[in-house]
């Protein structure tokens, strides 16, 4: 028998999973009631949500304590890394369903509706995107007002900034401080140029810039914790969270604007895809902000060290994933 291997940590029996199951049952039953206008619905959802929050607090607190008390060996750390990657992969596939939907309605569904047979039913229907379909007229769209050339230039700069912040992880990994700083400055410059090309009074462009900048600040925060500089880590993590919150504020402003101008979730297929895709993305930004905030509080409580901070890295992976989704959204939902 090999005795050199450490024992894998297997936790004690726990009531949290059961609590989570009860929470989801309450929420699912409550939501079914709610959408069918039964009075108990909102109350059930609220109580389920309360149980869920309690459960998440308790469960994550337990994991954080186990981690801080050194119960997780190298093999357990590896399990956490693997699981976070696979979880993000599942999220990618969730968004893929909606990107696929947008592709289908724009390039297949609309043309089917506009075909000769379709015209028998809806003579006035024009098979062009954006559309609210045969029975509705769009009052506004999210398409940019700038010229095509400028938009393409902006997209090129955006892709450049995204690539640069991705590349920044190489000097981060190899501990090359000045090279990392150089790349992150390049990201900021590219983001500024992007804003210049896209026009400053177009909210989606500002949102793109906010998220790209937040990726840069987060990468610098990562550098700080790897080098044991907790004060700087806290500052840059807080800055990242602030950028995320401002993004959500801008998104709320954009939605308000859209609803005033007459673009709603109910505005046919254009409204459906626009609000569902940006809405689910916004929900994921919210979750990312919560994750990063928890990491900030844990850091303030003295958790993490230069060597052990995977919870933060997992949250950072998630944040970068949410960023990438936005860049793709920006291209196919807003610009193209």
């Amino acid at each position, binding site marked *: 028998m090999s005795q050199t291997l450490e024992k894998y940590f297997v936790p004690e*029996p726990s009531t949290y999973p059961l609590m989570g*199951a009860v929470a989801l049952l309450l929420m699912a039953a409550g939501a079914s009631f709610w959408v*069918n206008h039964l009075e108990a619905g909102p109350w059930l959802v609220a109580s389920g949500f309360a149980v869920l929050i309690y459960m998440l607090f308790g469960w994550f607190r337990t994991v954080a304590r186990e981690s801080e008390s050194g119960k997780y060996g190298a093999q357990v750390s590896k399990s956490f890394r693997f699981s976070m990657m696979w979880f993000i992969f599942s999220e990618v*596939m969730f968004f893929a369903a909606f990107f696929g939907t947008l592709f289908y309605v724009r390039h297949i569904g609309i043309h089917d509706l506009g075909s000769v047979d379709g015209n028998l039913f809806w003579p006035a229907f024009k098979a062009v995107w954006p559309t609210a379909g045969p029975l509705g007229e769009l009052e506004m769209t999210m398409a940019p007002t700038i010229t095509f050339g400028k938009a393409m230039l902006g997209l090129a700069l955006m892709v450049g900034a995204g690539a640069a912040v991705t590349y920044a992880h190489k000097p981060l990994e190899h501990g090359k401080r000045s090279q990392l700083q150089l790349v992150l400055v390049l990201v900021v410059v590219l983001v500024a140029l992007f804003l210049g090309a896209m026009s400053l009074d177009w909210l989606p462009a500002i949102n793109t810039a906010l998220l790209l900048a937040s990726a840069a600040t987060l990468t610098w925060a990562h550098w700080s914790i790897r080098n044991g500089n907790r004060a700087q880590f806290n500052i840059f993590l807080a800055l990242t969270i602030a950028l995320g919150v401002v993004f959500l504020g801008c998104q709320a402003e954009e939605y308000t604007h859209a609803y005033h101008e007459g673009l709603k979730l109910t505005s046919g297929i254009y409204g*459906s895809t626009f609000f569902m895709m940006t809405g689910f993305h916004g929900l994921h930004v919210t979750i990312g902000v919560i994750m990063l905030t928890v990491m900030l509080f844990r850091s303030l409580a003295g958790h993490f060290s230069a060597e052990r901070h995977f919870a933060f890295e997992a949250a950072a992976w998630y944040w970068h994933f949410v960023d990438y989704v936005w860049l793709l959204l920006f291209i196919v939902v807003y610009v193209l």
Partner: protein
Amino acid sequence: MSAVTPDAVHGHDHGHDGHDHDHHMPTGWRRWMTATNHKDIGTLYLFFSFIMFLTGGVLALTIRAELFQPGLQIVRPEFFNQLTTMHGLIMVFGAIMPAFVGFANWMIPLMIGAPDMAFARMNNWSFWLLPPAALLLVSSFFVPGGASAAGWTLYAPLSLQMGMGMDMTIFAVHIMGASSIMGAINIVVTILNMRAPGMTLMKMPMFAWTWLITAYLLIAVMPVLAGAVTMLLTDRHFGTSFFNAAGGGDPVLYQHVFWFFGHPEVYIMILPAFGIVSQIVPAFARKPLFGYASMVYATASIAILSFVVWAHHMFTTGMPAVTQIAFMYMTMLIAVPTGVKVFNWIATMWRGSMTFETPMLFAVGFIFVFTMGGFTGLMLAIAPADIQYQDTYFVVAHFHYVLVAGSLFALFAGTYYWIPKWTGHMYDEKLGKRHFWLSMISFNVTFFPMHFLGLAGMPRRIPDYNPFFTDFNQLATVGAFGFGLSQVFFFYIVLKCIKGGPKAADKPWDGAEGLEWTVPSPAPFHTFEVPPVFEAPAGHGH
């Protein structure tokens, strides 16, 4: 009553008293509700899936009773549609999938020499999400408007029109999806990170390989299903137009998104069955598995191809001919890796020193009957011919040949093969064989006539039919009740084995290979807390 009792742990001569886990092992309901032990959770999955199997079976028998004669006798047509829908959903999400996850929980840590699953608490959550989902599905029968009646595929626009039962189904699917994704992540991480030293990927037992690939499929497609039903929900209640042509959407879009999930889902339900059969056939042929590497590559090929064949479910929706042809050829291509598998199983048996205990009977039965389901699948893949078969009983016959004679028979085979390890007792061999023959005969009596019904044009999901179809329908109903009773008999055999029986040796099958046979029977509560030494059996890898 359970497979592993605390007494069995302490009574065993390895003496686990020194290990800190045992001190807090709860008893009674807490043991099951708060379980973090992979064997306990595996047992929970297996019992849950059997309860759901009986529930779905009762719905099926109600359907068959109604179809015993033409005309309407027992149920109203709208209730009949609820029965077919719920039968499908309960069998797929409640019976077959959880049963395979139960096998994965019990056997994968034992087969790869791991102390437990990678995330033991999350493992518990994955299981305990299932009863709430089942509760939502079953109780939807009792709300105004009844359960969902749109078919298990929940096609729009039907699914946009139902009452509250449909919403409960949507949320149940969300919860089961979350359960599956967490369970699958757990399995992938366990297999990738917790194998005994020396067990490289290409030396893993086939069951672990097939589950690794299945779990990958689950993580890839369950979120897509979540997206599809979410769009249904917002179309129903929040005014979106994804599947509503009047708003610029398209009901056919739902079918695309659903089957992008649905076709890989089919392989999610059969790949672990391939794994089980690949463990059993070598054990009873007393020869190593023929073509281990080609088996791995065939499994991976099936998984990759499963992402590019979905539209063969939609040949009659008016797709362009070129699309139909592309999907037709991709679909037929799947016959190649599947053929490799069937060939390898037969080659494993070739000149083997064969005996036919119950697990082997079910495994050989699986190969024979599943292959018939594969052939009808090829017939359905032919786009021009499919226009005739679409939505007839031929399709019903086809997918019951692969899901019942495929997945379910493999589950039976696996149960008989590993139950000595679970309970410490041998099952009653005579009764087991009887269960096999009863199941095999009644299965074919039920579903073989459906091929002819379908080819003659009898549509599926219809409570009434032309009197012309009566004879075959009566035969199928008789077979179905026989099949149902055979499974009650199976439950008796399992209970009898749990309660007692001849003591099982650590390795009750002389030709069996693998780490699971190196631990005592019944397997102690904690196994492989220190990784075991792994030596590849002859013929596995290089």
